[in-house]
């Protein structure tokens, strides 16, 4: 009998994990919703033409002036929340995932290089990291937005700039420990190309902390985007993400118009929760040191 490949084994282990699978199913469902959302939404909430201010703040289930049903109610501008959530979901996922993936890629590469190369290169990279970490996210976002106007891509770039340094630092600290381990010495001894040792040998050992950080960071990126929007320097107000919907509606929570904030909140929570569950399970099944 042929031994199944490690990837296959990990996938099997993942499939056997109840929480991991339920997270993956919810996440998959949300991704599908985000993908097809634009075609099933009853309204285009990003199109000002379709909004009627007279429909503002209607509770769930109300009918609009022209007879359309608002399943989850409307916000302060008469935006259908159901449609807005479908659109916002896509925006939030796009922003969170894209920025985190790019930030992880940049941060990991630089962290590996810094930890591995040492000396001048390390010093240079780490000083840039320190510099980056001391620049407040708000300033970075503000500069970008002033240069190019508010927009999804600018928020993503801002989030990447804010995040990458954290990964670079973490990975470097792991590499510092890893590179003294026997297998690295062994691999180096075999005169394997440096890049190969770095990416094929050291990197996999950095995966566990990386996955923990990255899953946490996707959630963090989504909420940071919401905070930037809260401070008025995030996404365009006409194209609300889940975070912006929550931020907009939050003030109305106390006044009884709970639906403006609660429904997007529930969806955001589901997104973050499922990403984390999948991440946690992945970490457990991928970690060679944890296999029973």
């Amino acid at each position: 009998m042929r031994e199944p490949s490690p990837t296959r084994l990990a996938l099997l282990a993942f499939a056997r994990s109840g929480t991991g699978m339920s997270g993956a199913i919810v996440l998959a469902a949300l991704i599908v919703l985000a993908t097809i959302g634009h075609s099933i939404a009853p309204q285009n909430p990003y199109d000002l033409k379709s909004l009627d201010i007279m429909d503002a703040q209607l509770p769930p289930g109300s009918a609009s002036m022209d007879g359309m049903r608002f399943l989850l109610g409307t916000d302060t501008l008469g935006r259908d929340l159901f449609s807005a959530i479908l659109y916002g979901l896509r925006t939030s996922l796009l922003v969170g995932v894209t920025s985190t993936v790019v930030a992880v890629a940049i941060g990991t590469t630089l962290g590996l290089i810094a930890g591995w190369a040492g000396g001048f290169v390390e010093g240079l990279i780490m000083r840039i990291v320190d510099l980056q970490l001391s620049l407040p996210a708000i300033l970075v976002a503000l500069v970008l937005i002033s240069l190019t106007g508010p927009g999804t891509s600018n928020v993503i770039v801002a989030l990447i700039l804010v995040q990458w340094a954290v990964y670079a630092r973490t990975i470097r600290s792991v590499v510092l420990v890893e590179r003294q381990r026997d297998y690295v010495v062994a691999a180096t001894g075999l005169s394997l190309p440096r890049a190969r040792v770095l990416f094929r040998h050291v990197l996999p050992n950095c995966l566990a902390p990386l996955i923990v950080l990255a899953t946490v960071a996707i959630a963090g990126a989504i909420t940071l985007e919401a905070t930037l929007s809260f401070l008025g320097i995030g996404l365009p107000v006409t194209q609300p993400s889940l975070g912006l919907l929550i931020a907009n509606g939050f003030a109305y929570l106390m006044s009884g118009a709970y639906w403006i904030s609660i429904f997007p909140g529930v969806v955001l929570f589901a997104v973050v929760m499922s990403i984390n569950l999948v991440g946690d399970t992945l970490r457990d099944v991928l970690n060679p040191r944890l296999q029973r």
Partner: protein
Amino acid sequence: MLSRRDTLLLAAAILAPLPVAAQAARRLRMGVALAPNSIDPHYHNTGQNNSALRHVFDTLCNEMGLEEVEPCLAESWKMLDATTWQFDLRKGVTFTDGTPFTADDVIFTFERVPTVPNSPGLYTPFVKPVVKLQAKDPHTLIMTTAAPYPTLPREVAWVQILSRKIHTGATTDDFNSLKVAIGTGPYKITKYVPGDEVQFVRNDAYWGRKQPWETVQLKAVANDSTRLGALLAGDLDLMFRVGTPDLPRVQNDPKVEVSLSPSLEIVYLFPDSTRDVSPNMTDKAGKPLEKNPLRDVRVRRALSMSIDRQAIVDRVMQKAGAPANQIAAPTMEGFNKSLPPIPYDPVAARKLLAEAGYPDGWKMKINGPVGFIANDDKILQAVGSFFSRVGVETEVESVSPAVYFGKATAREYCVFMTSYTGPVAIGDLKALIVTKDPKTGDGPFNRHLYSNKQLDDLVYQAQATLDPVERVRLTGEAMKVGMDDAALIPLVQTMGSVATRKGVVKYNSVPIGWGWAMLAEPLS
């Protein structure tokens, strides 16, 4: 809205001594959105500074945003001829260190105003009309203007009076360290944390009405919800500016009293009617327009008519506002009462657009700030929605004020939204749509360089008219010219809101929106 009779009553209330029984030791904690950024009363002309420092320093007269100004350190004033004014100063007034107040102190103050170094916003506009100051006797002051200047008392009302003896050579730093924070006002300052809070204690030697509050704290809480929360939690007695979303709730809260009062702030759109090609406008296919449609007055009127201002007030502003039909508030001198409301008529708007040659509209992006005016981003979205509904496919972009105003001035926008607050209608006109001219200094915020000879003439004629009735008529006429040409598209007038702990404090709001302990009365 406050009538003239109310004004007089208010003035009486401020100046009249209170019954002795009510003078028990009390403290007042006020929450504001912004704290003063300096204790030097001539350093930076901003609403929060003028509000806060007026507790310590008096002015010759009080500007409340009403049709008349009120006496303060000057008991009365009269015009001796077209360019000469006599101010009769109050006797027996002393600074809190015992120095007596005389006419010479006013002269010193007017000399000091233009000399404050590194100021981000000098008070020079208010002293500039005066070319000569003369103390006839220690309590009579003669002011001479270069040209007839009928609104002079309104201008000098912004200048807080210092003492030649105390403040000669005093720097802004000396004020900020509280070393020379000495005035004739109803309170003395005891603590100042820049951008955060100011504390006052009552000036028991004050010349005017004895203040009911032993101590006053002015605390900056930038977030609307938190500020209200602090009031509900009992950490504040009084707060200014209730967030719109909270209005319906606190209006029903048994612990809180909310009062709304019309302010002097008018929110408006500024369309680019001067350039042949303006940015951010394309045809429906996305090709930049070669001809700027906003140059056609019919187009500007059509856009104005497409907006349901009442709906914006009701839905977006939770009724904390009123539709505006001109660039002035109804309480202001020079408000044109005969102008009709701008109708909401999308059908007529479409017809006008068709007449102007745009039956199918076009595409454009309009801009506004975020967090500069209450609900600014939402108002702009509503406007965008109304424009879109008459065929002008509108995209809305709201950005931080830090970014926004620079770009607006650089004319990177074809239509932008902002607001203006001023005490008299002629001031609004001069700031916004009178021809921008470095020589006169007028039109500083005329960002699209609107220029209308007829309007300019009326404004300058009004400015030199001594007869108040004629002056108001001319101003109103100028306003009509500007509005008929849709030079600006007025949207709404905002309302100021004050929340107090019910049964503890009562606040007498004034249109100009002062946040003064002097306007707060204890109820228990």
